[in-house]
């Protein structure tokens, strides 16, 4: 055996490919480790570049992508002996089968491990030199930890190479087909994607962790809640799920190897594929003299058409009949069907399979398969004659090369068309299975054949070109893959213009409301542009293609020079090149001259310059807006909006104001005029939208003036992204950020630490003003230039649309074929308005306050006519929220609640005064299973309606923690409304998601986590943690008591004037509602980041008479975490739930005991008595406290 291992090793070590693979992995990892731009390992924020966590991630991801390399190395050893006919010598020597196979395997495995070690070396050396790299701004590097590299090497590289190695070695040895060897890697990769897709559901995580063959899920499971501090210091260890996972797959590999062993034969033919190669036995036929008939040879156009059509069919058939094609396509369809199970789920709620949803799902996932098929089979087709050495015959045929290549090209297109049709029928099938019959075939066809197909055509053209030019099929494949990689790398370098990305066009979002919107026209221009280049390259490559026996590029070039002027090339080549340039110029004119093209970096640069130039005006006294009147003319078809408005500005300071600073942040604005009632002169103004006006007469304290503006926004030509979607042909949604604001706006500043260093801005330790900065109390965090304003507006739009803005409809009329709507508010509101216009169907209802018969509120849901699925649920949610909030907090301040659908270009819902724009994809196409699912539409509606109190009655000061009074309280209200509507069980499910999102959110924190009371507009804190905390608080304090406190708070501060209320004040109200014995929870919940570690170690039960004494052995810890997650244990002396379950007849566990017990650090056992047979018991069974390990809270009882 050793000679065979030695042979294999020395053979491999002489092969350049071995070093090429090693080098590829080395270089990639080197750059991952030493560059800022590429962060596959998750070294973001304060996670260090060479910390165990990012190293582990990088190794895992690279190992997964090395599947192809492992396949190339492990698949070939036995095949190679057959390819070079070495088997005839090999298998006649007295080498034992077992030695032969083991030797080959071990040798290849060692080589494989050597190649994969390039990952480790690259990471080590990359991190070692990071500070010397020219692009390094900030060195985020800790001390070198050897184990951080050794652990992933042992955990992932060794076992993955073994498992995959066995798999590929076995199939390579049995099938002995080159194609099988390089396709098997792809197939494994695809199957893996299918698996990964199931991870979306939280509940599947543990299962996935065990069965993920790469160990990725197991590792992610181990690290899912790790904080920055833990990512920097902890090693991923081979324990628990990861250990079981590794053992499982090594075991499977061994079983596969043993099972396959008997099938290996020392004979010429492989398994399966060999069967076909039955040798044809000859029968001696009698020789008879036959005259070879004369035929006429035809070369006219008709004949060429016949030949072309024949070739297209011939090549098409040859591809679709090949085993790898069937395997890849089949895997693809399998993936699609497996995806349908998780169709657009949010909090476990499925969406209605409307056509665009299905299309997103299918095309997004199937794209990879189509690209793989194009990549492989273009190579196969171009190289077909040469690979089979049939070219020696065909090249001497009087056949135009253009004809042959275009036929192959057309065959490839036919294959793509077939795949897209399969995709479409799969989609329709999925819709039908889900009971949805509005198929929108037109949308399918347009999206698949007008938007996606051209891209595949362009890709195919490029692949043909590359394979036509190169002299080696594998180099061709390599170049194509390099092309894909290159495009990705370019993206990470912030080059985004579609003019540079071969085959790219603006991405198209179809919306039921706005159809294909503004996208199709620019997409066609881009496709035309690339098509010109594609055809040029294709034709050029056909002229240069391999033909005859001289294949060197020089010889082919010489030949081309001799002939190119004779053919169509003479016309087509210059023509396509000219069209390419013209088309490109036209696009450039549209995207960069008519419109502004901006990279991410340029946009950040602009914000940085804005800050550098204007931050000095931060505290400059400005008048306040007290009244707003808007005349907005919308021209949806032209994507144009004219804002004319009047602000009343009042000087609330105690000295005169000389200059007014007007900010218009939107770069696309055209300012027709900005005038002041007393006259003003523009002192300065620039592209950053900051204009300073000197008033002719200073504005004296207490005095008011009016400011009039006339602004225009419109789409001229098209942009690199297509065009405006905020002003849409059907479904316009604008807000008052398009109107002037006053003074310097701090909110837009760059907040990411790395960005601030890169753009040379001073450090900004806070993302919101610190709570101690009392100057910040002068504003709400929603506006820096107004308190409560008077508001009215007149909207005009096309005759068939309804336009809506906050306020009550005063009047509507037709004028010059346009529809006008006048709205007015009868009470002051926050300076926060929305403008929507679409062809709506309106669903009306009325809510009467059960406690006050005089109070009636009109409910209106404006939705797309076909989107009626969730309207009733929304109406219900509105009523229930109005019920709950007006009974428990305060009166609803408006006479109306409106929900308005807007297209899915943006996916959120937002609460404006009495007006709630709501995303198409978020709440209008949900498929709610009332029994099991969380009704997302209900939840979001309740949350947004609650904002009419929390946000529109009380809005916190512009500093840390204020979102607690707005977002957390909206969450709390929604939770309570849902609990009353759907029951406690639903809430447990909902809170499970919230807890998971909070823990993951804190794990992904880039800067610092803050206690809830000081959170700086961090979603995972004020939404997700907020939900968990408020629900627990309600549990401790009691709903009535808690609501009483909230009621007092809101009554005190609603519609207040500055200084605005802050979170500590709010928390004081909560504290007062809390009994003294529990006051500590307020500190734990709001003032600290508190993390519990609650475990049930064992549960026993004893039956006495008719009762059971249940002993719950526990182990409880309580810790306080700092902003990066360093934990410090603190004394535990808390009231914690102890729960006992019994098993019902249906087999479910049902809670029979739930009481709070005082648990201290030294509490090791709690004993409770129940009178039903207990099944499970434990500490904090409903996960009310923040605990990262929830699976050990409850344990089965041993009687």
């Amino acid at each position, binding site marked *: 055996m050793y000679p065979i291992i030695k042979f294999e090793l020395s053979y491999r070590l002489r092969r350049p490919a071995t070093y090429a693979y090693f080098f590829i992995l080395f270089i990639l990892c080197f750059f991952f480790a030493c560059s800022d731009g590429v962060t596959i390992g998750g070294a973001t924020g304060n996670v260090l570049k060479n910390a165990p966590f990012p190293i582990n991630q990088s190794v895992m991801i690279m190992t997964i992508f090395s599947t192809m390399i492992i396949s190339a190395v492990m698949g070939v050893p036995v095949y190679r002996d057959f390819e070079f006919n070495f088997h005839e010598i090999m298998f006649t020597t007295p080498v034992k089968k077992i030695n032969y196979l083991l030797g080959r395997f071990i040798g290849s495995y060692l080589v494989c491990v050597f190649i994969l070690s390039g990952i480790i070396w690259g990471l080590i050396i990359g991190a070692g030199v990071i500070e010397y790299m020219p692009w390094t701004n900030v060195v985020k590097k800790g001390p070198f930890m050897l184990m951080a590299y050794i652990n992933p090497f042992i955990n992932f590289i060794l076992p993955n190479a073994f498992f995959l190695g066995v798999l590929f070695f076995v199939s390579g040895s049995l099938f002995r087909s080159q194609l099988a060897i390089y396709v098997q890697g792809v197939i494994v990769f695809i199957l893996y994607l299918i698996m990964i897709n199931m991870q979306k559901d939280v509940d599947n995580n543990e299962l996935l962790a065990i069965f993920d063959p790469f160990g990725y899920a197991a590792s992610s499971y181990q690290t899912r809640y790790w904080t920055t501090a833990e990512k920097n210091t902890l090693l991923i260890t081979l324990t628990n799920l990861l250990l079981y996972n590794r053992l499982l797959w090594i075991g499977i590999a061994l079983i596969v190897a043993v099972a396959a062993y008997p099938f290996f034969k020392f004979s010429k033919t492989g398994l399966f594929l060999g069967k*076909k*190669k*039955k*040798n*044809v036995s*000859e*029968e001696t*036929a009698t*020789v*008879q003299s*036959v*005259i*070879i*008939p*004369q*035929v*006429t*040879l*035809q*070369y006219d156009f*008709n*004949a060429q058409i*016949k*030949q072309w059509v*024949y*070739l297209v069919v*011939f090549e098409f058939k*040859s591809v679709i*009949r090949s085993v790898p094609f069937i395997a890849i396509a089949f895997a693809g369809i399998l993936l699609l069907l497996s995806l349908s199970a998780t169709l657009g789920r949010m909090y476990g709620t499925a969406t209605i399979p409307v056509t665009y949803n299905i299309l997103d799902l299918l095309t997004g996932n199937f794209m990879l398969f189509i690209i793989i098929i194009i990549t492989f089979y273009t190579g196969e087709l171009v190289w*077909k004659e040469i690979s*089979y*050495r*049939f070219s*020696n*015959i*065909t*090249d*001497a*045929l*009087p*056949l*135009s090369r253009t004809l042959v290549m275009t036929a192959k090209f057309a065959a490839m297109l036919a294959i793509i068309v077939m795949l897209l049709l399969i995709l479409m029928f799969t989609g329709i099938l999925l819709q039908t299975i889900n009971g949805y019959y509005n198929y929108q075939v037109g949308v399918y066809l347009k999206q698949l054949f007008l938007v996606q197909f051209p891209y595949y055509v362009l890709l195919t053209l490029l692949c043909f070109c590359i394979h036509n030019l190169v002299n080696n099929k594998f180099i061709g494949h390599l170049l194509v893959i390099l092309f894909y990689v290159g495009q990705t790398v370019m993206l990470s370098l912030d080059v985004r213009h579609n003019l540079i990305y071969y085959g790219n066009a603006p991405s198209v979002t179809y919306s039921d409301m706005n159809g294909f919107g503004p996208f199709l026209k620019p997409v066609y221009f881009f496709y035309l542009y690339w098509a010109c280049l594609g055809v040029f390259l294709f034709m050029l490559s056909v002229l240069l293609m391999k033909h*005859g*026996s*001289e294949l*060197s590029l*020089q*010889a082919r070039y*010489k*030949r081309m020079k001799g002939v190119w002027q004779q053919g169509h090339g003479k016309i087509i080549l210059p023509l396509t090149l000219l069209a390419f340039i013209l088309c490109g110029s036209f696009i450039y004119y549209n995207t960069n001259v008519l419109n502004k093209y901006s990279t991410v970096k340029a946009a950040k640069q602009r914000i940085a310059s804005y800050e550098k130039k204007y931050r000095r005006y931060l505290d400059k006294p400005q008048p306040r807006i007290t009244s707003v009147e808007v005349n907005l003319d919308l021209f949806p078809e032209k994507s144009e909006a004219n804002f004319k408005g009047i602000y009343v500005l009042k000087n609330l300071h105690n000295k005169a104001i000389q200059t007014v600073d007007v900010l218009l942040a939107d770069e696309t604005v055209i300012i027709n005029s900005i005038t002041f009632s007393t006259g003003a002169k523009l002192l300065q103004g620039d592209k950053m939208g900051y204009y300073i006006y000197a008033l002719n007469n200073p504005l004296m304290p207490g005095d008011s003036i009016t400011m009039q503006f006339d602004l225009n926004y419109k789409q001229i030509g098209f942009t690199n992204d297509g065009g405006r979607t905020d002003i849409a042909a059907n479904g316009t949604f604008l807000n008052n950020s398009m109107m002037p604001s006053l003074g310097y706006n701090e909110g837009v500043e760059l907040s990411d630490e790395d960005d601030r260093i890169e753009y040379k801005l001073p450090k900004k330790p806070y993302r919101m003003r610190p709570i101690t900065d009392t100057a910040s109390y002068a504003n709400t965090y929603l506006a820096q230039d107004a308190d409560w304003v008077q508001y009215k507006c007149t909207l005009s739009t096309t005759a068939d649309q309804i336009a809506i803005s906050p306020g009550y409809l005063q009047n509507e009329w037709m004028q010059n074929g346009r529809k006008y709507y006048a709205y007015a508010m009868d009470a002051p509101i926050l300076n926060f308005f929305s403008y929507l216009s679409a062809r709506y169907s309106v669903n009306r209802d009325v809510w009467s306050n059960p406690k006050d018969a005089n109070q009636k509120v009109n409910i209106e849901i404006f939705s797309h006519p076909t989107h009626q699925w969730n309207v009733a649920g929304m109406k219900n949610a509105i009523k229930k929220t109005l019920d709950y909030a007006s009974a428990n907090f305060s009166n609803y301040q408006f006479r109306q609640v409106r929900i308005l659908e807007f297209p899915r270009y943006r996916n959120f819902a937002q609460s404006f005064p009495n007006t709630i724009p709501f995303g198409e994809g978020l709440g209008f196409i949900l498929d709610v299973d009332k029994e099991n699912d969380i009704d997302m539409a209900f939840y979001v509606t309740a949350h947004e309606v609650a904002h009419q109190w929390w946000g529109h009655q009380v809005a916190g000061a512009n500093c840390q923690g204020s979102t607690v009074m707005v977002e957390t309280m909206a969450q709390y209200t929604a939770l309570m409304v849902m609990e009353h509507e759907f029951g406690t069980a639903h809430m447990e499910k909902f809170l499970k998601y919230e807890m998971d999102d909070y823990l993951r959110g804190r794990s992904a924190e880039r800067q610092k986590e803050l206690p809830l009371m000081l959170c700086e507009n961090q979603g995972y804190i004020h939404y997700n943690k907020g939900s968990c905390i408020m629900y627990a608080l309600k549990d401790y304090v009691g709903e009535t008591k808690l609501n009483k406190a909230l009621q007092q708070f809101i009554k005190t501060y609603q519609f207040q004037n500055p200084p605005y209320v802050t979170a500590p004040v709010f928390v004081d109200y909560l504290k007062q509602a809390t009994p003294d014995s529990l006051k500590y929870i307020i500190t734990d919940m709001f003032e600290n980041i508190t993390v519990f570690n609650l475990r049930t170690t064992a549960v026993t039960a004893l039956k006495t008479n008719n009762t059971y004494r249940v002993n719950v052995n526990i182990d409880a810890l309580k810790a306080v975490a700092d902003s990066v997650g360093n934990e410090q244990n603190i004394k535990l002396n808390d009231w914690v739930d102890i729960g006992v379950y019994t098993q019902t007849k249906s087999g479910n566990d049902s809670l029979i005991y739930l009481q709070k017990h005082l648990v201290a650090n030294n509490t090791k056992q709690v004993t409770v008595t129940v009178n039903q047979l207990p099944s499970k018991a434990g500490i904090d069974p409903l996960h009310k406290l923040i605990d990262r390990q929830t699976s050990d809270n409850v344990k089965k009882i041993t009687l």
Partner: protein
Amino acid sequence: MQLEINNLSKTYPNGVHALKNISLTINNGLFGLLGPNGAGKSSLMRTVATLQDADSGSIFLDDLNVLENKDAVRKTLGYLPQEFGVYPNVSALELLHHVALLKGVTNSRQRNELVNALLVQTNLFDVRKKKLGGFSGGMKQRFGIAQALIGSPQIIIVDEPTAGLDPTERNRFLNLLSEISEQVIVILSTHIVDDVRELCSQMAIINKGEVMFAGHPEVAIAGLRGKVHTMFTDKETARQIAKEHQIISTKFNTGKIEVHIYSTQPVPGFSPINAGLEDVYFTVINKLSA
């Protein structure tokens, strides 16, 4: 029909000077191209078959400039390359149809007749529906022959066609060729002297890219009349003879070594024999007559 090759030269990028000023005139009939491996036979054949270009020189098929009107030449060309492969998952029938169609036989009735006739002629009719992947070397070679005959070519180039054929097949094929060659040019490249002697009315011997001899085989043989002498001897003597005489060939014959030497004079111990084409071949290759 006349094929006129003038001063054809070719050097490959790796420096091999494959063709050196080759000039040949080839008329209707079977033309044998003899030469050892690496002599430049295949290079010459491929150049005539339009698969590669020459550095200098010209080839004319009657008035047709072969090097500049490749497609026109291909229309009248039948070519059996020395080495070729087939698509393994296609049957002989299908692939013959494939080639025929691409060669311009677009009329399907005609193509059916032609393909069937060729299959019968090459004795492949019974296995016509079998996949080519299972064909033996000889069967594949016959398929190659069949495809070279498609479309009544005026010039047929067959490069080492009898390799891998059993004697029966070989005879059958050579007969077929000589029958066809009455009307057309057939260039047969081979290193088997017998093939040429039996069939060819014209021949050339090339070595190291140069034409060593061109003409009628009988003329060549006549040129050696009285200059070839033979002796049966043992190994030791043969070695001695090699030092003293110009050896044409040595080979085992019924346990002894048969030595042919070149000499214009009678040589003691040797008996003069009638020269064969093989003697011509070796004499030319080894430049003995010079």
